[in-house]
């Protein structure tokens, strides 16, 4: 067992609120150390009050325990603060396939309006904001004016 094996095992840990994304896809898994059977893991929350963090800690422990790793320390780091820039390209594709518009890299990098590039269902760019706050802290709610479907947008952060 080495560090890479542990990182592979941890890809089984998903965000309970967006179960298609692993904690590494999301960029909240910051570091893994492995020495003499002791594992130290550093994670960072997406939002301060993200209720998924407690579940994620439990899931990390239980998935590592399944592989015989019981000496696990999980530390929360706040700085540098999590940003959607840390979300992997693969993660963004998975989000889109799941029906959530991924953070648009153009919108996130410029001072422009933070909005999705297109409807994740029909790919139309004819969309409007319903609410800046969605079903979880990290999402906003949009509506497609062509296919009429409402959809979640993973906000730039």
């Amino acid at each position, binding site marked *: 067992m080495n560090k890479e094996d542990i990182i592979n095992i941890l890809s089984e840990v998903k965000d309970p609120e967006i179960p298609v994304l692993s904690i590494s896809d999301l960029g909240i898994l910051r570091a893994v150390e492995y020495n003499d059977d002791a594992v130290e893991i550093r994670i960072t929350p997406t*939002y301060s*009050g993200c209720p998924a963090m407690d579940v994620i800690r439990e899931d990390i422990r239980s998935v590592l325990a399944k592989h015989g790793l019981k000496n696990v320390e999980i530390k929360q780091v*706040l*700085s540098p603060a999590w940003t959607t820039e840390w979300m992997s390209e693969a993660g963004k594709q998975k989000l889109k396939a799941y029906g959530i518009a991924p953070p648009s890299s153009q919108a996130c990098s410029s001072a422009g309006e933070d909005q999705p590039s297109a409807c994740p269902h029909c790919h139309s760019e004819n969309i409007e904001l319903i*609410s800046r*706050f969605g079903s979880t*802290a990290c999402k906003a709610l949009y509506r497609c004016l062509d296919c009429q479907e409402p959809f979640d947008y993973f906000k730039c952060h």
Partner: protein
Amino acid sequence: MDLISTYIIHLADNALILGHRNSEWTGHGPILEQDIAISNIALDLVGQARNFYQLAAAQLNELMPGENITEDDLAYLRDVNEFTNLILVEQSNGDWAKTILRQFYFSTYQGLLYNELLKSASSEIAGISEKSLKETRYHIKWSSEWVTRLGDGTEESHTRMLDAMQSLNPWIAEIFTPVDFEYEAASSGTGILPEILKGEWYRRVNSILDAATLPQLSSENQPMQILSGKNGVHSEHLGNLLAEMQFLQREYPGSSW
């Protein structure tokens, strides 16, 4: 308790009490999307409060080994006069206009404060501020849009905003009136004196009030302050809030789920 720990607890108390007030709207928001919005803001604030309480607890345990103080002790087992939040944030929700204005006044202040705390001599305070500032920017944007929409809306919504201003304006002066723990935090480089944010706060607030066709605020002619939340002298609202928020831990000490 040392003054720096009190300063950190003050930052936590502001976030917790306003977060709790906002959570009272959950299930009662005027429309579903705004119910979700105010609940999300509540969640952000309670999360920020947890980070500050955890930091304060760690610091207190270092100063007083064996006490084993936790974030829950700080949130659930202190009495009214031990809370150091601003009077503004404990005010009752009233109608949507009052809730919005309270959020707008506070978030504008909190955004300016976190921005200064990025330079804190405490790397933990700087880290929490860096994290929180991103969330606060959303709160400022959302509440500014609502102030404008209501102020420049119908006669009814405009009148309600005027009533909200009358009710909340007396609590603005306290924000910028420094107390012991702020002097100590500023001199140690951990925190700042709130006065340095005053000019910018009035500029930003007045620019939105202007867009909302609401009267401008003046930093002069502030009413004399008798209550001081930062010194633990609160309005009657906080006791009622705590009675509800702390009920479970008081009735069933140490319970968890």
